[in-house]
């Protein structure tokens, strides 16, 4: 294995700089990257000034032309989403989704802690372009340091005249209100986020409408954008859509932040070129993860956050391009790659995800509330050696009550199994229920023999609990 070349940044835990052009992480090298002084000294708030000299429609067009795909998980183009606000309905709101909590995902917290002004400038640009009259910046409850950094940045930006009434002497006026969550994964789903912001239990709303741009906060048109998505806006306005689309591919331009965790030599958060970087580049590149730990072998990886169906070495050459990953049975999601080497107990690893989603079910949809819990219980007894062969069928049967029909999975070339493309059908309002099933389905499809070994010879499930190790 070659020498590692990427540079870890000491004050940015986990972040490793590589040779990719840096759009959203450009200031991370500076220890004072979170301060207004540093921000202003490095082009900060210049994009806002530039935007204010253009019409809102021109700024909106620039973002639409940049094909900035949402970085929260669904990957929907932000400029198109903005266009879904019904004409003539006022007021419109912006809600910033900083509730990062998908298993494996670690990027929005870094952006909030290390470059809060970049996010604030992104919010202001969005508000100006779409005519959003108030912005709510929702930060996950468990992120005390991010809350502190963003609060300080907001206070400084208000004092400097960047936020509030008549921004930089223009007609443009908007308040940004900092709001903390209180611990609930499902609130990352945009309609649940809105419910939470209205002071309710964070349960997703029934769809349609599919986009809160038509009916959102207080029933008004509401744009919900992810932290990383908004953090791209200052660069796009400053350098233009053409410069952005010159990086990456036509359908997935720019860069994106990814977190690689688990059994690699150098787990870290990387800014990579969108569309062209492959999983192999990321996991084995000398300026990135540098290979599997202690020269073990790659067994499987989760390519896009805990909700995503798993990949094996057979999919390593796929790029970060939704149109290629989808047909191969998974999704890019929130840019979270969790890597398992050959020592991993696969059923136990699947359990660490299924129990997450079972625990985080909001309880609104029966298939998720009941199904998730049963999936966890059945899988747990299998993992603990208390299950029976019948349990393996039962897991699939319960899963099919949440996701009827063929569930997406990767191809297994050695056994002649072809991929089933993403997405799935579902009987629930949001993705929490299917996500409880996804790890089980992947693990059972790709590594069935490990499950069979755990249940071999058991005729009846036993009720004794034993400790589990992954």
């Amino acid at each position: 294995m070659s020498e590692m070349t990427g540079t870890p940044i000491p004050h940015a835990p986990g972040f490793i700089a590589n040779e990719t052009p840096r759009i959203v992480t450009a200031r991370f090298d500076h220890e004072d990257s979170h301060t207004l002084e540093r921000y202003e000294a490095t082009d900060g708030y210049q994009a806002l000034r530039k935007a204010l000299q253009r019409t809102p429609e021109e700024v909106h067009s620039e973002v639409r032309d940049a094909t900035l795909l949402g970085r929260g998980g669904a990957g929907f183009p932000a400029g198109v989403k903005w266009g879904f606000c019904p004409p003539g309905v006022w007021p419109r709101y912006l809600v910033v989704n900083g509730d990062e909590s998908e298993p494996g995902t670690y990027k929005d917290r870094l952006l909030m802690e290390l470059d809060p002004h970049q996010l604030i400038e992104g919010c202001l640009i969005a508000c100006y372009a779409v005519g959003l009259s108030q912005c709510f910046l929702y930060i996950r409850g468990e992120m005390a340091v991010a809350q502190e950094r963003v609060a300080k940045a907001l206070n400084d930006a208000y004092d400097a005249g960047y936020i509030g009434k008549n921004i930089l002497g223009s007609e443009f006026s908007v308040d940004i209100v900092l709001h903390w969550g209180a611990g609930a994964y499902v609130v990352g789903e945009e309609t649940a986020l809105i419910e939470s912001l209205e002071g309710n239990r964070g349960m997703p709303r029934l769809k349609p409408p599919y986009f809160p741009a038509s009916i959102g906060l207080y029933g008004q048109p509401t744009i919900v954008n992810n932290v990383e998505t908004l953090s791209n806006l200052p660069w796009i306005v400053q350098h233009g859509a053409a410069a952005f689309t010159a990086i990456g591919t036509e359908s997935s331009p720019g860069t994106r932040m990814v977190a690689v965790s688990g059994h690699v030599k150098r787990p870290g958060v990387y800014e990579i070129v969108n569309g062209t970087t492959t999983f192999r580049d990321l996991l084995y590149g000398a300026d990135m993860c540098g290979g599997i730990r202690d020269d073990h072998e790659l067994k499987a990886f989760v390519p896009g956050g805990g909700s995503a169906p798993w990949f094996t070495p057979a999919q390593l050459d796929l790029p970060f391009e939704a149109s290629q990953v989808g047909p191969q049975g998974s999704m890019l999601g929130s840019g979270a790659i969790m890597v398992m080497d050959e020592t991993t107990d696969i059923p136990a690893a699947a359990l660490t995800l299924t129990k997450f989603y079972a625990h985080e079910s909001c309880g609104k949809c029966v298939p998720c509330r009941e199904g998730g819990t049963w999936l966890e219980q059945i899988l747990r007894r299998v993992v603990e050696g208390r299950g029976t062969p019948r349990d393996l069928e039962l897991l699939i049967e319960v899963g099919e009550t949440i996701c009827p029909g063929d569930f997406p999975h990767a191809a297994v070339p050695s056994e002649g199994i072809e991929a089933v493309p993403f997405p799935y059908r579902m009987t629930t309002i949001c993705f929490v229920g299917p996500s409880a099933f996804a790890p089980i389905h992947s693990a059972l499809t790709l590594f069935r023999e490990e499950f069979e070994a755990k249940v071999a010879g058991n005729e009846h499930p036993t009720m004794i609990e034993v400790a589990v190790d992954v």
Partner: protein
Amino acid sequence: MRFFNDENSSLAQEIIGRYPKPRSAMIPLLHLAQEQEGWVTDEAMAEIAELVGTTSAEVLGTCSFYEMFKRHPVGKYVINICTTMSCALMGAGDLMKHAELRLGVKSGSTTVDGMFTLEGAECQAACTEAPCLQVNYRHQYRVTANQFDELVEELASSDHEVPEHGVLSQIRQHIPENRSVGAVPPEDVATAPVWLTENGGNQ
């Protein structure tokens, strides 16, 4: 007898004033109550109900949905060990076992001296730094058994900067009055914002 002390009462009014509808202040006010008392009492919920114009049952409904709101006293330091996939792959199970032995309590309970509550937690967005934990929602990275012991000693000795449970962000947002646009109930807004109409765009 009011629940919120004078300082927090005026802070509560300031927070409510930032939202187009008072009920949106529910979660921030629950945080404020927890900051004052270390946990969320029935008295706090009754007062929040009054402040945002709803019933205490509604406040309990919201409060009970969110994991961070404790409706019973917890330790001065709540230690959350992440148990989700990335941390589990890197030894979170062993770390939890060690923590239980070191603190002498099972996950989910509080030490008899009221210093520590130990909890298994879900993904904390520090997956590359596994196994990780949080003390009162502040991260510790790549935690070994030894580091855990040192951390516990530090916390017990008060030679550290972690605030007591209930205190979350130590910096609050303050919107200066002369800069504030102000929150308007949505039903009182009928027209496009002025910067749109002036530029003739996006109606």
